[in-house]
């Protein structure tokens, strides 16, 4: 059984479904007067955040607390990329504290992987976003939201739009949605697509208008204006015109289609306010679903009784 959740690719179809099913059960807890389970009593979960993300940190913190775990928030600030001793030293400290799980957000791609494999600590490592690599629990909560709204994921068409190159959300979503049987299309200007994207299990398009009428889900990614200065696109206006989602464009979607965004949004850049606030938008639900999904991940990784996440190697890649 895998001990860590580092990449959406670590999850088999059964693993992913088990997490989503568990999350659905745990979601019902929110309706009870006492929103807490004793499952992880006595366990210690550390939130190790090298990058500010109040939303993700709070979500993991609350998830762990709802399962009665002890939670330590470890904000490792100011570690520069040129002096990396701190990750190892911090890991050794956490090991000494007896951390059972480390939820790590890091600005460097692969840092959670290194944390899990360098022999510095024994606990489970959960990737809460690393550089431009992955953000597997975001993909899980997105899948949860799609399943909840559309009744299923198999065969659904998902368009992911925007800065694919720098997006860990896009990477994790492509991998997980493919595992779950969706058809994913990445939509972006060629400058914002990674060079090796042709080998990914998805389609690629430069034309948003051509994709919208065929999409059950359109997921808009945040595009930073600073990318303009690095010549990824000519101007904010041109970007919005070609790849922004506004009401007129939204109208070309099928009636049942939903609009997603991992947040935080750049209103007026990749998405207009009326679209973000429309009934088709799932942006607020995504946040609440994140809590259930993270509870499920912690529960399945740490409770030990249910080896639902990561079976033995022979089931991998199935």
């Amino acid at each position: 059984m895998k001990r860590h959740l580092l990449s959406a690719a670590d999850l088999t179809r059964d693993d992913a479904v088990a997490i989503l099913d568990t999350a659905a059960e745990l979601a019902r807890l929110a309706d009870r007067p006492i929103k807490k389970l004793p499952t992880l009593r006595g366990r210690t979960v550390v939130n190790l955040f090298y990058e500010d993300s109040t939303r993700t940190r709070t979500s993991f913190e609350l998830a762990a607390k709802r399962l009665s775990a002890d939670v330590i928030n470890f904000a490792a600030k100011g570690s520069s990329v040129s002096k990396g001793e701190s990750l190892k030293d911090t890991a050794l400290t956490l090991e000494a504290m007896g951390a059972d799980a480390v939820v790590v957000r890091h600005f460097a791609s692969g840092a959670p992987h290194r944390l899990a494999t360098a022999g510095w600590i024994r606990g489970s490592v959960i990737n809460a976003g690393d550089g431009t690599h992955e953000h597997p629990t975001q993909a899980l909560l997105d899948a949860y939201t799609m399943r909840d709204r559309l009744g299923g994921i198999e065969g659904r068409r998902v368009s992911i739009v925007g800065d694919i190159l720098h997006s860990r959300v896009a990477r994790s979503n492509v991998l997980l949605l493919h595992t779950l049987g969706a058809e994913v299309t990445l939509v972006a200007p060629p400058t914002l697509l990674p060079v090796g994207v042709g080998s990914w299990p998805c389609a690629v398009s430069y034309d948003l208008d051509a994709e919208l009428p065929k999409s059950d889900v359109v997921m808009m990614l945040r595009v930073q204006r600073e990318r303009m200065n690095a010549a990824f696109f000519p101007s904010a206006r041109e970007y919005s015109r070609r790849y922004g989602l506004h009401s007129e464009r939204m109208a070309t979607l099928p009636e049942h289609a939903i609009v997603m965004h991992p947040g935080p949004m750049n209103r007026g850049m990749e998405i207009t306010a009326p679209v973000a606030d429309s009934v088709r938008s799932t942006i607020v639900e995504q946040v609440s679903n994140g809590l259930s999904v993270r509870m499920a991940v912690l529960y399945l990784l740490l409770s030990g009784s249910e080896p639902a996440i990561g079976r033995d190697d022979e089931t991998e890649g199935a």
Partner: protein
Amino acid sequence: MSSFIVRGAAPLGGEPTDLLLADGRIVEIGPGLSAAGAHVVDAAGLIALPGLVDLHTHLREPGREDAETVESGTRAAALGGFTAVHAMANTSPVADTAGVVEQVWRMGQEYGHADVRPVGAVTVGLAGEWLAELGAMADCPAAVRVFSDDGKCVSDAVLMRRALEYVKAFDGVIAQHAQEPRLTEGAQMNEGEMSALLGLGGWPAVAEEAIIARDCLLAAHVGSRLHVCHVSTAGSVDLIRWAKAKGWDVTAEVTPHHLVLTDDLVRSYDPIYKVNPPLRTHSDVEALRAGLADGTIDAVATDHAPHADEDKDCEWAAAAMGMLGLQTALAVVQQVMVDTGLLDWAGVADRMSIRPARIGRVDGHGRSIAVDQPANLTLYDPSAPWVVDGDQLASRSRNTPYRGRELPGAVYATFLRGRPTVLDGKIA
């Protein structure tokens, strides 16, 4: 001075014979040699090569003596069969003045287990703004002939042109680390499928190739010598082949690791595989092997880059770039070039001794194994497999990518001017 009889060695893998070494030279070659008072080295089954010459070694002294010193680095060199190494200029202080290169040269004379030829920086502080005093470095006792800002590219076309022109006055060569800086901003590994998958900044092949193409044209235009450091892509091999076909004085080197390792290994995020230029793809590796075999690539150079543990035992982005190379180079070349039939031992001698010595203008090294030549020799056992133990290497650092891997052959002895620096696989 004591003399040695090397008994039963096979020069360049040919017929076994005896070699008599005395007064720093090879004085006799032939079967059944004897000489009064000579030490006899049983070399049956061993291949004799001219002492290896490395064009690209980082000795880290002065400045990072915790990672390597002239003493420890040349110890690794001798154990790897090298009799001369070029010490790269990116030390601290940078080897950009006659004073620093002379200091490195003197340390080599005093503590070296191999001859140390300092490389001078092309620009002051490797900053790429002002030419360093190339002439002073050439004229000082270190007699620098190779100039390089290695670790950084001389990216300014005018500076590169001037440097190429200027060193003609003293038969120097500019050894370029070809890396277009803008195209490699934030680069962490080879740009391709693997970088896309891992979310690591991509280092495109074209960033190397664009500089090589430009520099070949510049060298041709001013009629000077250009040496291209550690080529890593199939396209680079093509460009150098083209330049040579034009008759231009362009030479190139490849590292052992670029002949065997690929960017697939980065999947582990283990910084042991982080190197500059980055590990490339399988088809690049094939092209590099072919280029070395047909002589397009002149030399194998180790780019031996020791790093202290704390600079490697960290996350990928924070890790220093580079890997050890001196002690494993010959065995890796055997594995990927000789055992595969791409190169014979005469070819190995050519690419690891004769041509590098010629490119670096190193006196007394890289000669044929013949009477009256300096007795700089490597005795190598091609059937002595060993598993690399990173903790047992002579370097002060342990960043070898071959830890736990089996290599097919081992250096038995190294002779520097007729005296063993290594005997029976150990420092003599």
